[in-house]
């Protein structure tokens, strides 16, 4: 747990938020479906409370209920909500409005959408003060002060701008400024950094932490990311299927998780150092229940490795594990004995053969947009060996997806780029590639909903892929189809279903099966798990590892999640503004000496184990690819900036150690020495 968070000074006063037996239902197609099943929690003054859970568990519903802002089809069926000691449910509309104005605020995902596109930033922030009774001038003055407090360096010009002219991170600062404007007693943060880049996320989280000290506000922090909770909160609750299953101090819960669900969640995240050849990830079997589904007395029974008959019959009470740490499990005392769901042993690592299957030399891609040339990729070089995984990381706009599309032939690289499969140059467009080349190079897309034709059955989707890629028909094809489904652990009985009837994890299995239909040699995985819930992610990662071991396929694995990339990759490449900044073995890339950008990227990620590194702040925003900085493209934000040489001269991609390349003027020795201490803050 972080040491910098202010100690909760628990004065015996009314809690900032108190939910008691809260039950909320939504009416969908004429039926009331329960979303929150009797949630009781209380957030003390000045306390930061984290609420974790996967999609559909009701965490956002809890947040909106605390503002009495439920969708029209939603209703509080039972229980009570008290904000600052006031009973929210018995208030008149006007009192609720007063409360929203002064005591509760909320920040949520997608900050750019949260701001009105046609009103200037300044006016939107000032509105809050004007509402509180300030004159127009005074309101604008205070708005400007507030914007400085959220560390916007040029508030005067930001005030005059519109949301679309600012970056997502900047907009989130504005939203936070608006939320804190009236110094509320409770601030609800609903996935406030989801969708932001890692370095920006780090900045926003730091900001919230700083402001907490300044404003005496309690936080309800809602997220699916355990790392964020561990960084930001003192106490946490775990929500599953609308029921709070475990609650306690953050450090306690991470150290001694006492509910099988929490244990599963903690186990299935690839954590620092764990790699595919050492340990398979644990998974939580089964699926997230449907909204408002009929569930056994203990809602987790169907997915629990410890479940017994009593779990179906009797709802477990909140057992006290230690002071303030409770678990809603009959067997909380032996919950840690929860058997692993995946029995398969890790696949021992084979040293990949030396001959590369795929080679890229001097790959460039330029987009032309309204007269501007935007260089999305510049001189990208790498080789992919048989059976190897190359992880590709980078923030938005770094060119990850462009590279993926280009390799599989969905868009052609610039003239002069070389992409070779087994030593033979590949045509730019997939339409011009030979059938063997096409089947050798496949992709798993990020979002299976988009990647699977929603009109077709799984049988047709896979069958067509087999026919086209292998040329097989009839009974032979059916046999192959069954094998294929089996190989991705897809129940053949579901083969007649359409994508919409399957869960996210099953859909992604189908997408993987399709990629493997033609026995590919290289599969590009473009963020294959980022649309999935954590408990599903692990199973998919295990599957990818297993398939790789069986079929000797090479992966180019793209992800923004460094933990996942680290777990899966043999080597890792780091992209920034279309340039390869660093490329090396997975073990070496995340430890010094490392490229300054990789260093910053790694430090920005909040981790669940609590060993917090000093975060390296990156100055400013990611520059636009349309006008990249001169010299080293990273020099505008580099924490290890040397001097003019970085501005004027672009460093080459050099081999600094055997098999370890980077694009920096520093040598390996220099950086190893420098990185023993965190960099001096630059201009923050």
């Amino acid at each position: 747990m972080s040491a910098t968070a202010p100690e909760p000074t628990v004065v015996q006063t009314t809690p900032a938020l108190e939910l008691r037996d809260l039950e909320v239902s939504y009416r969908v197609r004429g039926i009331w479906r329960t979303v929150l099943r009797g949630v009781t929690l209380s957030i003390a003054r000045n306390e930061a409370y984290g609420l974790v859970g996967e999609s559909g568990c009701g965490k956002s519903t809890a947040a909106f209920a605390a503002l009495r802002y439920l969708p029209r089809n939603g209703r509080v069926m039972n229980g009570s909500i008290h904000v600052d000691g006031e009973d929210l449910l018995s208030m008149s509309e006007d009192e609720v409005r007063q409360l929203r104005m002064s005591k509760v605020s909320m920040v949520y995902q997608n900050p750019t959408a949260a701001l009105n596109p046609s009103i200037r930033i300044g006016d939107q922030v000032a509105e809050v003060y004007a509402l509180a009774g300030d004159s127009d001038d005074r309101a604008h003055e205070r708005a400007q002060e507030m914007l400085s407090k959220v560390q916007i360096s040029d508030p005067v010009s930001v005030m005059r701008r519109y949301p679309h002219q600012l970056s997502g991170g900047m907009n989130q600062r504005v939203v936070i400024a608006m939320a804190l404007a009236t110094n509320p007693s409770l601030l609800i943060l609903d996935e406030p950094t989801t969708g932001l880049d890692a370095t920006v996320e780090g900045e926003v989280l730091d900001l919230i932490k700083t402001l907490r000290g300044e404003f005496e506000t309690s936080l309800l922090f809602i997220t699916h990311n355990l790392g964020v909770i561990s960084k930001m909160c003192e106490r946490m609750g775990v929500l599953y299927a609308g029921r709070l299953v475990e609650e306690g101090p953050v450090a306690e819960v991470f150290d001694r998780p006492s509910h099988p669900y929490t244990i599963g969640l903690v186990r299935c995240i690839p954590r620092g150092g764990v790699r595919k050849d050492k340990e398979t990830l644990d998974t939580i079997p089964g699926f997230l229940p449907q909204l408002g589904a009929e569930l056994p007395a203990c809602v987790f029974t169907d997915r629990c490795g410890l479940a017994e008959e009593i779990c179906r019959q009797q709802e477990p009470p909140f057992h006290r594990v230690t002071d303030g740490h409770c678990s809603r499990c009959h067997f909380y005392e032996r919950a840690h004995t929860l058997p692993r769901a995946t029995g398969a042993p890790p696949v021992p690592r084979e040293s990949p053969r030396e001959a590369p299957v795929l080679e890229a030399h001097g790959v460039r891609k330029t987009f032309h947009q309204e007269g501007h040339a935007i260089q999305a990729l510049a001189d990208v070089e790498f080789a992919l060996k048989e059976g190897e995984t190359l992880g590709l990381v980078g923030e938005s706009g770094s060119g990850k997806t462009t590279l993926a599309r280009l390799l599989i032939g969905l868009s052609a690289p610039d003239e002069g780029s070389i992409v070779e499969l087994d030593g033979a140059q590949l045509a730019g467009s997939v339409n011009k590639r030979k059938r063997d080349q096409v089947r050798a190079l496949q992709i798993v897309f990020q979002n299976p909903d988009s990647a699977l034709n929603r009109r077709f059955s799984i049988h047709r989707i896979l069958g067509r892929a087999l026919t086209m890629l292998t040329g097989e028909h009839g009974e032979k094809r059916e046999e192959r189809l069954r094998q294929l489904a089996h190989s991705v652990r897809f129940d053949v009985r579901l083969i007649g279903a359409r994508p919409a009837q399957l869960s996210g994890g099953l859909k992604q299995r189908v997408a993987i099966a399709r990629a493997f239909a033609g026995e590919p040699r290289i599969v590009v995985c473009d963020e294959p798990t980022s649309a999935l819930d954590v408990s599903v992610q692990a199973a998919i990662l295990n599957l990818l590892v297993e398939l790789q071991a069986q079929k000797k396929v090479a992966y180019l694995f793209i992800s923004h999640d460094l933990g996942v990339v680290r777990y899966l990759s043999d080597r890792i490449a780091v992209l920034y503004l279309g340039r390869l900044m660093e490329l090396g073995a997975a073990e070496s890339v995340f430890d010094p000496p490392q490229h300054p950008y990789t260093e910053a990227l790694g430090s920005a990620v909040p981790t669940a184990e609590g060993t917090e590194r000093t975060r390296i702040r990156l100055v400013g925003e990611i520059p636009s690819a349309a006008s990249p900085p001169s010299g080293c493209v990273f020099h505008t934000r580099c924490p290890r900036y040397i001097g003019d040489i970085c501005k004027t001269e672009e460093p080459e991609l050099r081999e600094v150690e055997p098999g370890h390349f980077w694009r920096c003027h520093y040598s390996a020795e220099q950086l190893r020495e420098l990185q023993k201490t965190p960099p001096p803050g630059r201009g923050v």
Partner: protein
Amino acid sequence: MSSFGEPIGSSVTAAEPPAQAESTLEPAPSEAKVIRRERLALLLRSKTFIAGAVILAFWIVCAIFGYLIAPDDPLLTNPVKALQAPSSSHLFGTDTLGRDVLSRVIVGARDILIVAPLATLLATAMGTLLGLVTGYYRGFVDDTLGRIIDAILAVPVVIVGLLSLVALGPSTVTVIFVIAVVFTPVIARTVRAAVLTERQYEYVAAARLRNERTPYILFGEILPNVMGPVLVEFTVRLGYAIFTIATLSFLGFGIQPPAPDWGLQIFQHYGLISGGYWWPVLFPALAIASLVIGVNLLADGISQVFER
């Protein structure tokens, strides 16, 4: 006005979307049927759809069995009985040539209910094809066709129809042709927009990554996904086709005499209104109004179900 506590709008976005059923585990044996059944159930629950269907069904019966139902021969002229007010022998009265207005209204459903669907079907087929191609290829083809479509749309449909019918001479075939030509770009535009959305989905890329030919991608992969908008567009355009054909007939450029067409009947008698002869105008007018309203209620119901 809704109150504060209640969120404004049916904000499904306000919290976790409850309307979207997550995923089920066990699929029903025949899945396509289920979706179809569910849609049908939704349609049957829509009051507008039912109202529209009933009205349309009524006129379809008149169109098919008109001559059997009609009390008199709609074409039989009888100058002696010209312009008789509604009475027990002629419920809707008679027109200038002594023909029974009721019979003419009943049988009048036939021509428009043949011409309008045919024309709309033709336009939908051509528009869908055009929309698929322009939406998928974009670039030069798309730009050029887009300009031409803009030029056609710059002139009101009725005037384009007028112009073409003057050029080609009025006849039923010409009417079908004209309506088809005028509606094709409109439908193409809608389909194109839907295709532009679809082609961003990665299943299109996935099809290319197994060497599918473009026609298969267009008709095998994309078309099934845009059938919803196509169906909606068809029903909406059907309403407009009836509207336009009635107007053209009223202007004398559509269905030709002595056919008992409604627009034509109004055209032949609207000058007599100020003389107090309202019946040969009012009843066909009500017929047109009910038919177009019926078709549009139907279209509204369908679009509510398919555009979700």
